[in-house]
């Protein structure tokens, strides 16, 4: 027969100072874990969630990113005639041709800049039918050929002269920020959008960077990729928008590795903290344990008591850390340049905390606490009754 749960819980709170200190230490670890994971998840969300599996992105053959690619107007015209391209209202092809350029903008509060992507778009780029989820939250849409831009909310916060109403100067001309958009946490949230023809003209380009179109039916993907690859005139390559952005993520592998390694190293620390707490609990109550055993509770029951105490500590610390973390961390945002992907542009993102992350954090806290408390609990259960009762 086991001891009631109440016993374990009451014991945990019998020494409030010690419990609080240990729970706080565990809480800090939980916060750290959510912070580090939130960073990694934030990058992933920004890159992976971008791009629909129903959209096809066409680049020049061999180009590794939109910034390195070129698609001529003729090629875009040919693509728009393909049967696999979905048609919208009035039978217009759901296809957009866009130009990607990079400019170096100084960050707020720093003398250094980073490369920010400017996407020259057409009206259809904003259309929900293209699956991009870009909405103008403040200000208004830009006028064509007027040197007007709309910036993502991340960009407006991170770079100088990017707030609503400000003026940027590049390519010999002043550009006015007339609107701020929200792209739902996708990679577009790191970009500035402008009128395509305006951008092309000012950057002295005459070819687009990419063509993106919606698939008429998911089954058409293989066909159209093969068609485009096989057409010698075109020299283009097609893939789903989603797989393009997933590939961009590959440059960030080393960051994920470092962050998870850190989380593991610090969790070792927490493991020993939990061990310490339970060990001290056991040490402080040797006579009590002896008494319990003498009454008739088995060694297993005693062990259960202490394991439960470890669990309670883990839950306490886990909640104490995970709840504030889940509320605070998603408000943090930052940016990083993705060198490995060859886009060479800055990705701004918010830290992302999913409900699963909250759960994982809590679970890990409990697990580490219980495993940490295992040996001391075992010790408690195997104490010799007579020796213990004799102890002062």
């Amino acid at each position, binding site marked *: 027969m086991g001891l009631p749960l109440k016993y374990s819980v009451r014991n945990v709170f019998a020494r409030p*100072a*010690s419990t609080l*200190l*240990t729970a*706080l*230490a565990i809480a*800090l*670890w939980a916060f*750290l874990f959510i*912070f*580090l994971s939130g*960073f990694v998840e934030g990058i992933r969300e920004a890159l992976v969630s971008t791009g629909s599996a129903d959209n096809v992105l066409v680049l*020049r*053959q*061999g*180009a*590794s*990113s939109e*910034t*390195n690619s070129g698609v001529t107007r003729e090629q875009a015209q040919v693509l728009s005639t393909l049967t696999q391209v979905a048609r919208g209202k009035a039978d217009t092809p759901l296809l957009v041709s866009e130009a990607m*350029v*990079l*400019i*170096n903008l100084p*960050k707020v509060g*720093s003398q*250094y*800049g*980073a*490369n920010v992507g400017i996407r020259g778009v057409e009206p259809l780029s904003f259309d929900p039918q293209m699956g991009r989820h870009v909405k103008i939250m403040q200000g208004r849409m830009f006028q064509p050929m007027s040197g007007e831009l709309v910036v993502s909310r991340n960009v407006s916060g991170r770079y100088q002269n990017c707030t609503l109403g400000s003026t940027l100067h*590049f*390519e*010999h001309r002043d550009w006015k920020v007339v609107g701020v958009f929200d792209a739902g946490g996708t990679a577009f949230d790191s970009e500035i959008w402008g009128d395509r023809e305006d951008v092309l003209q000012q950057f002295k380009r005459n070819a687009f960077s990419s063509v993106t179109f919606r698939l008429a039916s998911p089954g058409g993907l293989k066909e159209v990729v093969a068609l485009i690859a096989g057409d010698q005139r075109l020299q283009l390559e097609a893939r789903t928008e989603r797989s393009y952005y997933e590939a961009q993520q590959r440059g960030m592998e*080393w960051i994920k590795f*470092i962050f998870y390694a*850190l989380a593991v*190293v*610090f969790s*070792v*620390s*927490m*493991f*020993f*903290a939990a*061990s*310490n*707490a339970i*060990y*001290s609990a056991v*040490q*402080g109550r040797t006579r009590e344990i002896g008494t319990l055993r003498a009454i008739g509770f088995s060694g297993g029951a005693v062990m259960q008591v202490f394991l439960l105490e470890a669990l309670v500590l883990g839950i306490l610390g886990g909640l104490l850390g995970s709840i504030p973390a889940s509320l605070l961390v998603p408000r943090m945002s*930052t*940016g*990083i*340049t993705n*060198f490995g992907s*060859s886009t*060479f542009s*800055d990705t701004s993102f918010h830290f992302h905390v999913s409900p699963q992350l909250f759960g994982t954090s809590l679970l890990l806290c409990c697990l580490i606490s219980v495993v940490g408390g295992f040996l*001391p609990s075992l010790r408690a259960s195997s104490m010799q009754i007579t020796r213990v009762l004799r102890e002062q």
Partner: protein
Amino acid sequence: MTHFGLVVRGLTRKKLRTLFTVASLAATLFGLTLLFSLVWAIQNSGRKSTVPRVITHSASSLAVNLIYPMRQKLESMDGVAAVTPYSWFGGIYKDRRNFFAQFATDPRNVWDLFPDVWEISEAQKQAFIQTRTGAVAGEGLIAKYGWKLGDKISLQSPIYGISPELTLVGIMKGKDPDQPSTVMYFQHDYWQELRGNPGDVGSFWLRLKNPADVPRVMRAVDQMFYNSDHETKTETEKAFQLQFVSMLGNIQSLAIFVGTLAVVSILLIVGNTMAMAVRERTSEVAVLKTLGFTASQVLALVLGESMAIACLGGGLGILAALAMTPALRAAGQFAPFLQGYKPALPIFVLAAGLTLGIGLLAGAIPAWNSSRLRVVEGLRKVV
């Protein structure tokens, strides 16, 4: 029984608890030392040059090119000793994972720009000039790919859509052993030829005659091209390298944030241990005071114990971080800033300082309480 002996006795009283606390500290200091070392390596990955050099590139961004005619204008500027075109190629050698830097440059004078960086034989310099499709590779690349002089190396460019076929005609030795030498140069003219001679240039390196001229020349260059079709931004080598570091984001703030959380956490853990240790030895402390130990001696004893734990744990963690040096250096394959990694003294001093600080802070309150214990109270207490 000396003071030191008393501290040791205190530590060994509850061996497991001491062990757990030390282990906890060791893990934390290990993690922190590594984290700070990484950040330090990133921020100091630049080359310390002894030659006054500046780089001129497009003011728009690194993705935009300048034009060749600018070279002459730059060369004729007052204070400029040598100018060479330097264009990033970014080609793929066999596999996308084989990443190394390639630049198209002028074989006749690139060495004048980097006399403090590269060492190469005269014969090979000549061969580079004479061979249009010639390439010169740094030692690091030779070591990695096992190339020999005369080997054919083909690259593919996702940026330009061309595939230069190069022949290795020279091997350059990096003068600074800590800087990576995994760079390849080939002829600027060949790069232009493959692309139909568009006449563009990625950037220009300028070597100045006098370090004092640097700010003036930087301004003069940008002034000269201001409002032209190719506005320039000229910066020192150091500033240029730091720009790349800053692109990695605010890693310093991140590291400080993580570090703070970890330090507070370990403070709580060690503090808890000290509090427990003191609590269960109340009667002992009372006895010590009865024997004649002063309050400050008691304070010192408790602090001593706390410091001992901290030094043991912190010392272990820091040493373990030091032991990771070869592993980190090997990781330089994937993370270029780790090539030639050397443990940075300032970081280890910081870690040692943190350790001592933790020892002091964690033991402060328990030590204070202990020292102020009234003998009567202490002897009366049943622990």
